[in-house]
């Protein structure tokens, strides 16, 4: 079969909503785009453990500590599923981690912002997980089978995380003056970076058209961003807090909220490595990996010894 015919067959499958599986023929660009996206997503889960991990030791009650620990642990689990999904595309977890540590692979820029107060644990859950979920719900129907299936598992836990985040803020919003201020401050700091999570405007997004055709993604960056603004603009009323955007207003004719312009200069700067925590996040990951090298070596040395002994016994 010619490449042209294979491509047609591939696109037909996608058009008929048949999932692409690891052994199926796929265009190299499809494989690469999925690999980039899934590994980036896996890295985001792992790096995303850091800003929240920052508050485990200081969680204000034993119950909150348990919830936060379980949440960060879930993120590690999501990283595992996603690395496994990415490995089906022929790239090992070690290679992916190497690319993360060298700066070649990216992760979500949102984790390059610092978590400064306890309220940030609420804002991250509500806004950051909230934004992530919209993307992930869409990805449950993505065309690559292993990615879609990983997303179904992840979405269930993520929506739970978002509710927990909102609940942290709800308690603060009904608390002392200091707690209310802490709550508003966290919303102010996390709002714009959360909007940036959906990526560049559609008019400037390089990967979008092909990804839509291949049904890797099914909604554009701007569509998802609008959906997020509409959702959060309503939820923030329950908290009795405000979003830091004077241009945010309901547009009756569009049936959507209008909102202000994102600071794209900040967006690109953080992408390029100049965010407040880019350096620290990567350093923390590298340090954990490097300090763990002797542990991993010992584990494989022991496994090899054990296998050799078993062989001797069997012989």
């Amino acid at each position, binding site marked *: 079969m010619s490449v042209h015919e294979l491509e047609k067959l591939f696109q037909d499958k996608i058009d008929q909503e048949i999932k692409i599986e690891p052994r199926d023929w796929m265009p190299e660009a499809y494989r690469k785009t999925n690999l980039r996206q899934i590994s980036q997503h896996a890295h985001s889960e792992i790096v995303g453990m850091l800003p929240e991990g920052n508050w485990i030791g200081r969680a*204000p*009650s034993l119950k909150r500590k348990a919830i936060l*620990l379980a949440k960060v642990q879930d993120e590690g689990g999501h990283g595992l599923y996603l690395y496994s999904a990415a490995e089906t595309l022929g790239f090992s977890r070690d290679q992916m981690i190497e690319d993360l540590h060298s700066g070649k692979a990216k992760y979500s820029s949102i984790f390059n912002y610092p978590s400064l107060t306890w309220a940030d644990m609420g804002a991250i859950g509500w806004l950051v997980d909230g934004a992530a979920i919209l993307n992930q719900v869409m990805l449950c129907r993505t065309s690559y089978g292993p990615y879609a299936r990983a997303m179904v598992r992840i979405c269930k836990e993520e929506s739970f995380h978002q509710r927990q985040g909102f609940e942290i803020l709800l308690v603060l919003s009904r608390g002392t003056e200091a707690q209310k201020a802490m709550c508003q401050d966290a919303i102010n700091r996390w709002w714009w970076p959360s909007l940036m999570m959906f990526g560049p405007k559609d008019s400037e997004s390089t990967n979008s058209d092909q990804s839509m055709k291949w049904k890797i993604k099914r909604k554009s960056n701007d569509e998802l961003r609008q959906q997020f603004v509409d959702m959060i603009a309503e939820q923030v009323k329950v908290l009795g807090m405000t979003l830091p955007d004077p241009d945010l207003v309901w547009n009756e004719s569009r049936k959507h909220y209008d909102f202000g312009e994102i600071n794209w200069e900040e967006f690109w700067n953080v992408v390029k490595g100049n965010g407040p925590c880019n350096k620290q996040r990567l350093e923390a990951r590298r340090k*954990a990996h490097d300090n763990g090298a002797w542990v*991993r070596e010992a584990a494989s040395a022991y496994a090899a010894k054990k296998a050799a002994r078993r062989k001797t016994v069997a012989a």
Partner: protein
Amino acid sequence: MSAHTSNQALIDYTLHLADSSLIMAQRSSEWCGHGPVLEQDIAITNISLDLLGQARHFYQYAAGLINQSADHTLKPATEDSLAYLRDERAFKNLLLTELPKGDWAQTILKHFFFSVYQSLLYTRLQTVPDKDLAAIAAKSLKEVAYHVKWSSEWVIRLGDGTAESHQRMLTAIEELWPYTGEMFRAADYETGMVDPSTLHAGWLKEVQDVFAEATLPMSSESVYMHVGGKTGLHTENLGYMLAELQYLQRAYPGAEW
């Protein structure tokens, strides 16, 4: 023994169990997001969660006992007031639990020593007349059995892994062994509960078996043993741990979270 003192002893004993589990959880949760490999990052966080859960059960029970007593200085007590508003000198955790997390070898060895001790202790505790303590012990035993398995396997892997991992285990033994004796020396409030000295032989046997498989030497029994944690005399580590743990409750008194 009067009703008052025996009740106080029961409260102290329960707090001792709670504090050891909490401090162990607080320390091991430092690994979350920083583990040597993702699967183990998840595993140790799971163990931190188990220990935190145990601590909460014990604190909740202690809070109930305190609230029922006529005039207790810790009244009104909740699991959080007991964890967050007591000072360093009131904490009764074992010194072993508050030692720095160190490298993976020290963390593993600490969990191994502690979980073997806990499994022996809880096995006995589940048969004491106090039904609440017995129930918490019985429930926790399943988790502890996993902690013993997980940490034993790692002790063996590291002991019998590479020259470096073996050396790191030797260093860990040297660091931690002097803090193991305290587990088996009874504080006053342990009278009438499980006598910890009766757990020592079983603990030594289990450690010996795993060390033998790990090609690690047993430490001499004549090593000087540090004590004090059970009665509130701690190492300098605990103050910093509590400063972190208790920060928000101390900074915003009376706030709900």
